[in-house]
Structures are given as structure tokens and as C-alpha cells.
């Protein structure tokens, strides 16, 4: 089985978000990690390979440091890595990214494409499903359980308040939700071996694309930071009154309910 795992390198979950002089997110000095949901996808890809044989290729789109993420995936047990790196990616939107990835993936034989259900940076949750469409294959998103045979998948996906069981013929795209598996730590041998595994770097030109093909559909007009946290307040009064007041504040002021 040929397995492709689409991953993204994101800011570490603790990263402090700062805007630079241009009002853009400042990535300077920020620690980068593999998007945690993509780790489930990597793990599932490796498990599928372990069960059914074949090869796992990880594909990512990113800057100079994206190779680190791919090396990490290789250490976990992925066989090959592909990094598409091009300055044009800095301003591309979800649609354009999918155009690029679709071209890159088209060069790799695939039966199943796995990815995380969401990236914790932009939170867009679009790429994998869009990619399925771009490649004209079905997709199942937010999967928490996956059973695969040679030519079909049975996936349990999370929906609001329950689950769905979906059967789909291969090839297909699956997005991983937390709970699908527990990503492994690589053996040290795996880490050593990863240093020697093939890692291919491609530019847009290598994929027959140019920046002009990728005019974004969506543009970011500005970025802002949340208002600073207000000083906490103690709600006075007896239990009943305080509880009522609290409920009101949460609903009307904080708007979290």
C-alpha cells in the first residue's frame, strides 16, 4: 500500500504570538513542531504500512526549517520525505497550497492520503479535504478509528455528539482526529536511520507551476492580537446571588456560553 502523509510544521503550542512591523506574525525565534494532529496521521500511516506493507511518504509545504519536521517523521518510521519549498508559499492561500500539493502528490503513487484534521496555527482545517477534491478522491474527516484492507477503508469519524461509520474505496483521503492512535516515540535506531533516508526538496518550478498560477482566492487584510486580559474580579454576595451573577457575566460579558 502506498501511503502519503501530509504534514505541516507549526509554531509550538506555547509560542508567544507577536506581530512584526508589517502587522504579520513574527516567526523569529519561535520553536517549531509538527502539527500535533499530523502526528496522528504519521502514526496511522506507519501502522498501515506495518500491517499491509508498502511505503509511507511524507509531504510538506514549508520554509527552510520544514526539513526538520520531515526528519522527525522519518525517524518515526516514514520511508521518504518530500518538501516543497518556494518563496511563493509565503503568500499563498489554502486553495493555492492545495494546487501545489496536488501536483506534488500526483508524482507519488498513493492509495491513501492521511493528514491531521486541523493545523493548530491557522486553524483552517481545509487542506486535506480540498486536496481530496483536487485529486478527485473521496475523503473522511476527523477519523478516530480506521480499519483498512487492501482496497477499502472503514473509518469511524467524529461528528457533533456522536460518530459515523463510513466505508470508502481506495484511494481516499483521511484526516486524523485525536484519539485515532498514540503517536510513537521513535527508537534511537530509528533516529539514526532517519538521517540516511531520502528527502527530496522541490520548488514550484519543479512541479511545473509558477507564482502566477497561484493567485490567492482569499487575502488576509489584517491581523490583530486579543485584548489584554482584564484584571480578575471577585463576585461578591451569597452563593445564590454570586452564581447568578457569574452565569450572567459568562453569557453576556465574556460571551463564552
Amino acid at each position, binding site marked *: 500500500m502506498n501511503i502519503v502523509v501530509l504534514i505541516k510544521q507549526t509554531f*509550538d*503550542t*506555547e*509560542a*508567544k504570538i507577536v506581530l512584526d512591523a508589517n502587522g504579520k506574525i513574527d516567526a523569529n*525565534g*519561535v*520553536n517549531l*513542531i*509538527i502539527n500535533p494532529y499530523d502526528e496522528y496521521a504519521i502514526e496511522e500511516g506507519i501502522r498501515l504500512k506495518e500491517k499491509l506493507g508498502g511505503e509511507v511518504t511524507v509531504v510538506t509545504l514549508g520554509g527552510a526549517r520544514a526539513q*526538520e*519536521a520531515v*526528519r*522527525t517523521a522519518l*525517524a518515526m518510521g516514514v520511508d521518504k520525505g518530500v518538501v516543497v519549498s518556494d518563496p511563493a508559499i509565503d503568500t499563498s492561500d489554502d486553495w493555492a497550497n492545495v494546487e501545489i500539493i496536488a501536483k506534488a502528490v500526483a508524482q507519488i503513487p498513493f492509495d491513501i492520503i492521511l493528514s491531521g484534521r486541523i493545523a493548530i496555527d491557522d486553524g483552517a482545517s481545509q487542506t486535506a479535504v480540498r486536496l481530496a477534491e483536487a485529486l478527485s478522491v473521496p475523503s473522511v474527516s476527523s477519523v478516530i478509528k480506521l480499519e483498512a484492507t487492501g482496497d477499502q477503508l472503514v473509518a469511524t469519524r467524529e461528528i457533533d455528539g456522536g460518530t459515523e461509520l463510513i466505508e470508502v474505496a481506495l484511494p481516499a483521503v483521511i484526516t486524523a482526529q485525536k484519539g485515532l492512535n498514540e503517536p510513537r*516515540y*521513535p*527508537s*534511537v*535506531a530509528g*533516529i*539514526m536511520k*532517519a538521517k540516511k533516508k531520502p528527502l527530496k526538496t522541490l520548488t514550484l518550478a519543479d512541479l511545473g507551476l509558477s507564482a502566477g498560477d497561484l493567485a490567492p482566492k482569499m487575502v488576509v487584510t489584517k491581523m490583530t492580537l486579543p485584548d489584554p486580559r482584564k484584571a480578575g474580579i471577585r463576585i461578591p454576595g451569597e452563593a445564590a446571588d454570586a452564581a447568578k451573577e457569574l452565569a450572567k457575566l459568562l453569557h453576556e460579558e465574556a460571551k463564552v456560553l
Partner: protein
Amino acid sequence: MDEIKEVSLEMKDYIVSSGAETLSWCMQCGLCTNLCPWRLVPGEISEAFNIRKMQRLGQLGLEGFEDENVLFACATCGMCLVNCPRKVEIIDNVRSMRNTTVAAGFLPANLRPIAGSLHANGNPWSGAHEKRAEWQEGLNIPAFSDDTEYLLYVCCTSCFDTRSQKIAKSIVNLLQKAGVSFGVLTAEENCCGETIRKLGDEELFQKLAESNIKLFNGKGVKKIITTSPHCLYAFKKDYPELGGNYEVVHYAELLGDLLKQGKISFSTELAKKVTFHDPCYLGRHNQVYDPQRELLKAVPGVEFVELGRNKEKSLCCAGGGGRVWAEAPMGERFGELRITDAVDKQADILVTACPYCIAMLDDACAGLEKGDVLKVMEMSELLNASL
């Protein structure tokens, strides 16, 4: 017997090149295992972790040491080094073995937020950097300058934990009473990096250390007082190789000297039975044993008793080596043994001199529900109460 896994000389070389220069000195006698505090508690980690075996796996480049319960179990207490017949630098080896996986991006899940916070905030406690100096409010501490002799460096824990802030405040008060010339740079400082280095994240350690060294050197810092023995260790033993050379003392050492010189004295009587838990990083790692005892004995009314395991034989609280962020179930925590030790000595107060120890011992005391018979105090708090 365990199944033999993959052997790789390359892996061994990698571990050695990460700093485990003495790894091959080990002749597998097992004296370290005998001393390791993990042998004093039951449970899953205790069963998985064997410090001698871990060295062996490293020597052979054999898979298996990277299991989280092995690789990250060591509290770097240094007990294993006490009798080691070959003076194997076991803790350096552990650090290097951790480095093999951490450098590849595989810090265990529970430690990622800590490393993340260190990257983003310069402290491991997810505290906003701009709040680092909040503990000083109302204390009127001068900024370090050419006019101040010492830099007082306050441990991240005592900057952000309200419980631990009392330690920083007590130390400030003691130093001021003794007329010590000191200033702070708290707002601009980052974590000393001692623990993250022990966790194997060398790159992050260097980032933290370099920023501190740049700050200290830029401000002309020559002498540093630390509130935590872990910071003491970092500044004394880790920073020189990166260009940070300072005369560093833990506050207990400085107060001990001031006591001898008669510059500080204690007057309020405290008729209590007091015992002292030697923090590993103050004792075994830095050989400071006496000033604490002299200071406590100088408090009128204090009846000082030694714990059974004291000084170089002191039992670790389990807060070092990153274990302060690890989860061991009740009944498997070294701190509980320590509380029991103190209760057995019928002490009223268990004193220690390390923010991590305080966190671990407080926790153990509450967990064992011994709060009614034993109080855990940081030494500065006790001394402050007797000024």
C-alpha cells in the same frame, strides 16, 4: 531476560559525542543501582528504570533506553555518583542519552509545554515574561548596577508561583537586613536553563544561557546570589564554558558567612524541633552542607535534629532532572519518604533550601496528610520569622 534489540555502534558514538565521555568507563558493578532512590519505591517506573542498565544500553548502543520511563526517570540527584568506583559521570551520560531523542524533536509529550514555555516566555511555568518581576512589587529592590555588589537571581519558580514568591521575598528581606549590596535584573532574565539541559535539550539551554550571559556581561555582573541551588549549579558549572564567569553563591552560603561575621543575627525565639532536607543540588552537587545548619542552629529555641539520610546521603525529593514536571503516582514519590523521615524524627518543621524541594515536599506532605504534625518551610522563611 529482555529481548536483545538493535545494536548500533553508531548510536553509541552519537551518545558519546553528545557529552557522555565517561560512558565506557562503566564496568557494570551496580553500586549506582544500589544507591538510586528509585530502588526505594515500587511501581512501573521503578521497574523500568535501572541506572546501571541504562548505562549498559548506552555503552552497547542498544535500543531500549529511550523508553520514556527509562530515559526521563532519572532525577539527576547524584546519589549514584557517590560510590561509583570509576567516577563515571552518570548524569552527563543520562543527559547525553536524552539528547539523542530530544535533539531529534522527541521530547515526551508532558515536557513539550515546558520546553515551549521556555522558548516563548523564558520560564518553564507558562508565565508571561512581562510578569517575571511581579513578585518584587512593594519591595523596593534596586536594579543591579555598578553600585551594587551582587546580582540577586531569582529562580523562575519563585518568580511565578505565589507559594514560592514568599521565598524570594524572605531572601530579599534577609539580605537587606544584613546590609548586603545587591540588585536585581529579574524582568530581563530568562530561566538559568539547568533543568532543560538535564532534560537533554541542549539547544534550548544554550539559547537561554546565552541570553543571560549577554545580559549579565552587559550589565557588568561579577557576583551572583541565587535563590535556588539549580541556578547555582547552572551559573557555576554550565555557564563558564559559554563565556559566563561569575562568583556564584547560594543565599545560604552568603548568609552563613554573614552570620559568622556577626552581620546578621536572629532574636525571635522559635521553640521548635527543626530538621533539614539537603537539596541534591546544594549538597551533593555543590558541597554546601554547613551554612544551613549553622544558620538554623543560630535561631534561638530551635532544636536541630538531623534526618537519618543527610548531607551526601540525602534522599532526593524527586524534583531534579525535570521530574518536577513528571507524574509519579502516590506511593512512588521520593518526597513522601522524606516527609516520613521527618515525621519519624518527630520534627515540627522540615526545612529545605530549594524551590523545587519545597514544591515536591509540600505536595508530599499534603498528600500524606501530615500537615497537622509537620510544616515544610524554606530556610529563608524560617530565618525571616526569627529576625
